[in-house]
C-alpha cells in the first residue's frame, strides 16, 4: 500500500486533508485551473460575440454555400467563378495537400541524400553538403520562396521564346509545360501488368527470404525487382498496341495550351519548401547515423557484411529510431510553411478561404476557424501516421 505524506493510515478524514493530501490537492488545483480556463474562454467568446453584435456584423457559415465569384488559376478539381466558397476552400485544400505531399517526398529524398553525403570521406562532397545546409538553413524560408519565384519569372523567357531542352518540354516564365499522357481503350493493361508484377515480386521476395534463412543462398532480389517493374509496363504497352498517346503542349495565342503545366507559383513554393526542409532533414539524418555506435559497423564488418549492406541492414534501421521523431516535426513545419503560398499567389487553403473568401465576404472569424480546423486536422493526420511508423520501427526487445 502506498502511504501519502500527511495521511496517517487509519486516521479519520478531516477537511484540511484535502489540501494536505498531495493527490487530492493536485486534483483541487487542476479543477480550479479548468474552471478558470473555461470561464475565461466563455468570457472571451461572449465578449467577441457582443462586440460583433455591437458592430452589427453578421456571423454564420451560410456564405459557404454562396458563389465565390472569383477565379482560381491552379486547380485539381473542376471549379468556376460560379462554384461556392466551400468548393473554393476545397480547391485550396487540395492545392495545400499537393504541395505538402510532393514537398515532403522531395525533401525526404534530398535530405537523406545530403545527410549521408555530408558524412562522406570525400572532402569536397562533404564540404559542399555542409555549405548547402548552412546556407539554406540560415535564410528564412519566405526569402527562398521569393527567390525561386523571382528566378522563374524574371530569368526564364516569355512563352514565345520558351526554351525546349528536350522535345516536348518547354520552360518559360509562365511555367513549365510537358506532354500529358492520354489513355486509350486498352490502357488499363499497363497498370494491371504492374499490379501483377508487384504481387509476383512480393511472393518472390518471401520465397527468397525463406531460401536465405534455410540455405544462406542470396537471390539478387533488388535488381530483379527493379528490372521487372520497369520491364512489365513497357512490354504491356507494346503488347496492347501502344494505347497511350501524348497531348503535346503548343503555343496558342498568349499561352501554351494542352499538356501538363507546372506554374511558377507552384514550382517556387514546392522547390523552396523542399530544399529548405531538406537541409534540416539532412542534419537529422546525420545525427541519427552518428548516434549509432561505431562498434556496430565494426561488428558488422567483422561478420563479413558488405559496407552497403552494413548501412542498409545495420546502421539505418538503428538510426531511424533517432531520426523519425524529429522528422515528424519537419513534415509538420513544411506543411504549415506552405501557407506562405500567398506571397507568390499560389492558391492554397490560406489564399482561398483564408484570404479571398474572407475578404470578399468579411467573414473573418468564420474563415479563420475553418482554416485553423483544417490545418489542425492535416497536422494531426501526419502526426498519427508518423507515430504509427515510429512504433513499428521501435527497438523490438527480445
Amino acid at each position, binding site marked *: 500500500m502506498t502511504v501519502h505524506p500527511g495521511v496517517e493510515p487509519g486516521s479519520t478524514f478531516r477537511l484540511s486533508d484535502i489540501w494536505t493530501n498531495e493527490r487530492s490537492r493536485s486534483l483541487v488545483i487542476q479543477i480550479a485551473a479548468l474552471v478558470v480556463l473555461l470561464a475565461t474562454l466563455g*468570457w*472571451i467568446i461572449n465578449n467577441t460575440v457582443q462586440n460583433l453584435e455591437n458592430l452589427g456584423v453578421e456571423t454564420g457559415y451560410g456564405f459557404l454555400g454562396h458563389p465565390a465569384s472569383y477565379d482560381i488559376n491552379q486547380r485539381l478539381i473542376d471549379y468556376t467563378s460560379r462554384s461556392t466558397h466551400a468548393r473554393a476552400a476545397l480547391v485550396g485544400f487540395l492545392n495545400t495537400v499537393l504541395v505538402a505531399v510532393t514537398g515532403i517526398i522531395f525533401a525526404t529524398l534530398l535530405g537523406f541524400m545530403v545527410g549521408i553525403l555530408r558524412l562522406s570521406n570525400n572532402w569536397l562532397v562533404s564540404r559542399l553538403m555542409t555549405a548547402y545546409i548552412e546556407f539554406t538553413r540560415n535564410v528564412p524560408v519566405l526569402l527562398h520562396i521569393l527567390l525561386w519565384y523571382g528566378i522563374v519569372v524574371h530569368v526564364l523567357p516569355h512563352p514565345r521564346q520558351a526554351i525546349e531542352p528536350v522535345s516536348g518540354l518547354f520552360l518559360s516564365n509562365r511555367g513549365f509545360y510537358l506532354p500529358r499522357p492520354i489513355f486509350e481503350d486498352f490502357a488499363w493493361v499497363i497498370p494491371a501488368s504492374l499490379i501483377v508484377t508487384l504481387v509476383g515480386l512480393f511472393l518472390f521476395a518471401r520465397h527468397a527470404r525463406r531460401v536465405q534463412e534455410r540455405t544462406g543462398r542470396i537471390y539478387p532480389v533488388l535488381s530483379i525487382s527493379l528490372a521487372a517493374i520497369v520491364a512489365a509496363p513497357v512490354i504491356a504497352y507494346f503488347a496492347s498496341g501502344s494505347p497511350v498517346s501524348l497531348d503535346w503542349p503548343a503555343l496558342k495565342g498568349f499561352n501554351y495550351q494542352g499538356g501538363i503545366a507546372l506554374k511558377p507559383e507552384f514550382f517556387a513554393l514546392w522547390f523552396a519548401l523542399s530544399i529548405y526542409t531538406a537541409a534540416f532533414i539532412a542534419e537529422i539524418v546525420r545525427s541519427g547515423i552518428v548516434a549509432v555506435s561505431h562498434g556496430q559497423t565494426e561488428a558488422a564488418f567483422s561478420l563479413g557484411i558488405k559496407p552497403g549492406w552494413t548501412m542498409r541492414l545495420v546502421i539505418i534501421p538503428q538510426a531511424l529510431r533517432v531520426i523519425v521523431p524529429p522528422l515528424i516535426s519537419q513534415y509538420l513545419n513544411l506543411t504549415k510553411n506552405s501557407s506562405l503560398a500567398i506571397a507568390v*499567389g499560389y492558391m492554397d487553403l490560406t489564399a482561398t478561404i483564408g484570404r*479571398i473568401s474572407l475578404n470578399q465576404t468579411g467573414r473573418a472569424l468564420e474563415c479563420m476557424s475553418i482554416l485553423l480546423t483544417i490545418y489542425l486536422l492535416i497536422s494531426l493526420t501526419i502526426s498519427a501516421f508518423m507515430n504509427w511508423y515510429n512504433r513499428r520501427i521501435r527497438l523490438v526487445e527480445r
Partner: protein
Amino acid sequence: MRKLILLIAAGALAAVTSVAGAATLDDVRAKGHVQCGINTGLPGFAFKDEAGDWQGFDVDYCKALAAAVFGDAGAVKYTNLTGATRFEALKAGEIDVLSRNTTWTYSRDNDLKLTFVGVNYYDGQGFIVNKALGVESAHDLEGASVCIQTGTTTELNLADFFRANGMSYEPVPIENNEEARQNYLAGRCDVYTTDRSGLAATRAALDNPDDHVVLPEIISKEPLGPLVRHGDDEWGDIARWTLNALILAEEYGIDSGNVNDLAQGTNNPEINRMLGTEGEFGAMLRLDQDWVVNVINAVGNYAEIFDRNIGPDTPIGLSRGVNASYLDGGILYAPPFR
C-alpha cells in the same frame, strides 16, 4: 501551469481590446491625430515624395479631414493597407477612416457594415497591355494571363467579364500595385486590370509609358470614395461634409488663394455659411466655426487637389471627364451648405 496563466492573460488581453467606441471624434481628439488608411503606393493617389512624406489625391483627403478636426493638416498618421487588409483594419478600429481607391458597393455597405461618405472619383475597370501584343480590344484577350489584385471588386468583375464573353484566361493573383507592375513588366501576365485611374497611374510610372496602351473597354462602375465604420453617424457626417466642402468650394470658386479674403465676409450667404461668418455651422458637427477655411487652406478645393495630383499637367494625366463639377457638365455634385 505558468504557460496556462500566460495563455489566459494573452486571451484576456485580446478580448478586452474591443473596437473603438462610438464617439470616434472624441477618440481622435484624445489621440491628437486622425489615423488614415491609404494604399501601399500608387503614383498620384498615395506616394512618398522626396522628403519622405505621403502625398496624393487620396492622401489629401486625409489631410483635409485632419484640418477639419484639428485645424492642422499635419495631424494625421497613415496606415498602408492592401486591397485584402483594408476593411479588417477599419472594422477593428486600427484606422479612423479609409481613403484608398475603394469602390462603393452594396455588400461592402450593408454586409461588411461600412459607411461610404461619398464619391471622390467616378471610375471604371480597364485593361492595360503592351502595344507589341497588337491587342486592340478586351475581346481579343482569349487565353491571356491577367494580373489582378486580390480582395478587390476588380477581381470579381474580371471573372464576370470573361465568363459573360465565353472567354478563358489565367488569373495571376497579386497583393499590391507594385507587385502587379513587376509581374506585368516581367511578362508573367499579358494584361494588368484594375480601375482605370490606377492604370493611368501605373502606366505613368513605367519606364516607357508609350509602349503600353489602356484598352477602350470599361467593364464596370467603380465609384471610389472614403469610408468609415458603421455606427458613428457624427464621425461619418464629419467625413462626408469634409468631402462635400471640397466639392462645394470648387462650385463657389473658393480656393486656397482667395479663401482667407473670402473668410472676411462676402455678399454670398452660402459662402459665408461655409466659411463661418454666418450662422453656427461648425458647432453642428462639434467642429470649429472656421473649419472649412482650415480645410481649403490646407489642401485647396477639389479642383486643386485633382489638378495637383492626377490632372492633365501631371505625369498621370487624367482629365476631369465625368469627375468635373455638374456646372461643367460632369456629375460631381454636393448638397447645399444650409
